[in-house]
């Protein structure tokens, strides 16, 4: 396993380098450069323009400039933003990346989980209007045009019902006398949720290993403890008001991305369940006298999960491009929106940096998917 991970890491590095080379030279091939932009003024003499070029290193051949860029990149220096000069690009990424990760990770987990559970139940209860209605819902969500759907969600929840804010990361009016910055609050939100989730998971994991009576108690406790803990933490720190403001802004984009991804997972799970149902080992499981629910969850669903997990890998690719659209529509200041803005104003260091981050995120999510697959299917062994 470790050898596999080591080899995989090297592969990922090479892929990333190739990706960076392609993006670098593509951007470089665009007509005009920053010197042109800065020296548009006709009063600036050509000699001065050349001097600026040399100062910025733009007179060097592209290959040499790329090597310099890569060298700096792997030493953690991604340059500075033109637009927010002289803010380092790495600083911008550190601020925006958590927002994107939180949005898409939450939505991915939610949609995968709900899609799998409902798809599983639907495959078991065939026929009737429930199957009909859910199939139509699934296909609609799966095929819907993302921007239109996002706008409809905004219209419904932010305009018609007026339950949630229409977009953005927070409501500036509420933060006028905030004790700490929004980014710091957001970081605390991430950490506290992480610990809460760990408690829930460990609790549920242990609950499967204890006698039935204690199981319910343990499960209830592992839900209640983090809940109460969270409430106390935000209450006592006095930051609850601000955290809630960010959370409220998070709900609508998360809901939208979840729903869009939900349809595919649900339909795929249903199909996969129906196919697995025909397997001989399912008949064996029934013949063994196992109750229906055990046959469904332990034997059918466990195997039906494999293709659904593979489907997740493919949908990860889409979520990158979908991410830019969603972040733009909800004005969610994450990596996607930053990438789009920087491209529009020719802020090349930021565009390069965010594109690289998108590449890294894609590579990492594929790695996680592969490792997950090895855990799910004993027939797969990585050496």
């Amino acid at each position, binding site marked *: 396993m470790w050898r596999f991970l080591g080899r995989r890491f090297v592969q990922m590095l090479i892929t990333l380098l190739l990706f960076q080379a392609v993006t670098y030279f593509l951007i470089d091939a665009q007509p005009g450069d920053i010197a042109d932009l800065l020296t548009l003024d006709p009063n600036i003499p050509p000699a001065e323009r050349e001097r600026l070029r040399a100062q910025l290193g733009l007179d060097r051949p592209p290959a040499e400039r790329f090597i310099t860029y890569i060298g700096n990149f792997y030493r953690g220096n991604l340059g500075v933003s033109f637009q927010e000069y002289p803010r380092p690009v790495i600083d911008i990424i550190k601020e925006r990346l958590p927002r994107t990760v939180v949005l898409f990770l939450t939505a991915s987990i939610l949609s995968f989980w709900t899609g799998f559970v409902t798809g599983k139940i639907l495959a078991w209860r065939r026929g009737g209007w429930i199957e009909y209605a859910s199939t139509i819902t699934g296909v609609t969500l799966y095929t819907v045009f993302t921007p239109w759907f996002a706008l409809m969600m905004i219209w419904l929840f932010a305009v018609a019902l007026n339950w949630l804010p229409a977009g953005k990361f927070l409501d500036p009016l509420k933060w006028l006398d905030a004790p700490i910055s929004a980014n710091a609050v957001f970081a605390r939100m991430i950490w506290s949720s992480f610990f809460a989730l760990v408690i829930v998971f460990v609790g549920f994991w242990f609950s499967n290993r204890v006698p039935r009576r204690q199981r319910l108690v343990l499960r209830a406790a592992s839900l209640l403890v983090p809940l109460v803990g969270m409430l106390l933490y935000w209450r006592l720190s006095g930051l609850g008001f601000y955290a809630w403001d960010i959370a409220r802004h998070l709900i609508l984009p998360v809901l939208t991305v979840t729903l869009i991804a939900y349809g595919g997972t649900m339909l795929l799970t249903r199909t996969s369940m129906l196919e697995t149902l025909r*397997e*001989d*080992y399912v*008949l*064996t*499981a*029934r*013949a*063994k*006298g*196992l*109750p229906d629910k055990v046959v469904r969850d332990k*034997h059918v669903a*466990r*195997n039906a999960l494999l293709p659904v997990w593979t489907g997740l890998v493919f949908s990860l690719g889409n979520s990158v491009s979908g991410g830019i659209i969603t972040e733009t529509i909800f004005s969610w200041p994450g990596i996607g929106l930053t990438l789009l803005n920087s491209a529009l104003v020719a802020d090349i260091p930021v565009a390069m940096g965010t594109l690289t981050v998108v590449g890294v995120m894609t590579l990492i999510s594929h790695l996680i998917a592969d490792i997950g697959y090895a855990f*799910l*299917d*004993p*027939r797969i062994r990585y050496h």
Partner: protein
Amino acid sequence: MTKPLLSVENLTMHYTTRGGEVAAVDDVSFSLHEGEALGLVGESGCGKTSVAMSILRLLPDNARILGGQIWLGDLELLSLPEPEMQKVRWGRISMIFQAAMNSLNPVYRVGDQIIEALELHWGDISRQQARERVAELYQLVGLDPALMDRYPHEYSGGMRQRAVIAMALACNPDVIIADEPTTALDVIVQDRILKRLTEIQKKIGMAMIYISHDIAVIAEVSHRVGVMYAGKLVELANTVNIFERPLHPYTAGLMASIPSIHGEKRDLVTLGGEPPNLLHPPSGCRFHPRCARATGICIEQEPPFQDYGNGHYAACWHPMEVDYGSH
């Protein structure tokens, strides 16, 4: 005679398909005694698996049992509530499936799949006891107990087959139904496993229904043989009688297809004619289109399943050898 362990009485089962009703099992009756091995033989599609699945009530959704009763001791299985039936499955009747190669779930360790059945039916067994039981079963079927922590894909076909047999034996069932358990294996492995299965059956003394389309295999394993044709049981007798004096022309045809000594095994195809279409079964005796002895009555009326003495039953208007006593 003692009370039978399992008795199937007038079982009739149809599949509903788009093309119409498939009469897969029609008025089939037989019984199984303690320690007995009963062979069910017949060509592909005659309803052998359907009989087995009816006994365990594992039929697909489109199947309907139209009549009959199945008694396991004092329990009538067809009217048993589902939770009770779940206890019967594997606890009292277990099965080795036709596709035994794929009967193991690929994502769980083989030993754990056997332990799953043990924990279900022997509730108060500890993990350690269960593992010991699996080791014991592995030895019984000729597998290295160390293999129980491996996954199915790490087993060869023959090993999987043995593991499936071990699983079927796990809870000491009263009856084991083996539905062509060796068809997917090569001949040598097939032979070895068959031998092991008959040995175990004798040693443990459990009752077994052995299903096959290969009459030579049936002859090797069973005390009594039932011959099925187109959803009907057409002859039933002890193995010696059925081989020496078959009454039904179909059975006689089957016998002729056995190679004399251990030559190559021929299939039932030698019988000539098409196997019947169960969507529209022939009138009267279902065998009449292929029968050399058929007369008018065979086309018009179904022959009754009749006792010819010595526990030898057959359904035929013109049996091969009527006079049982004079022999």
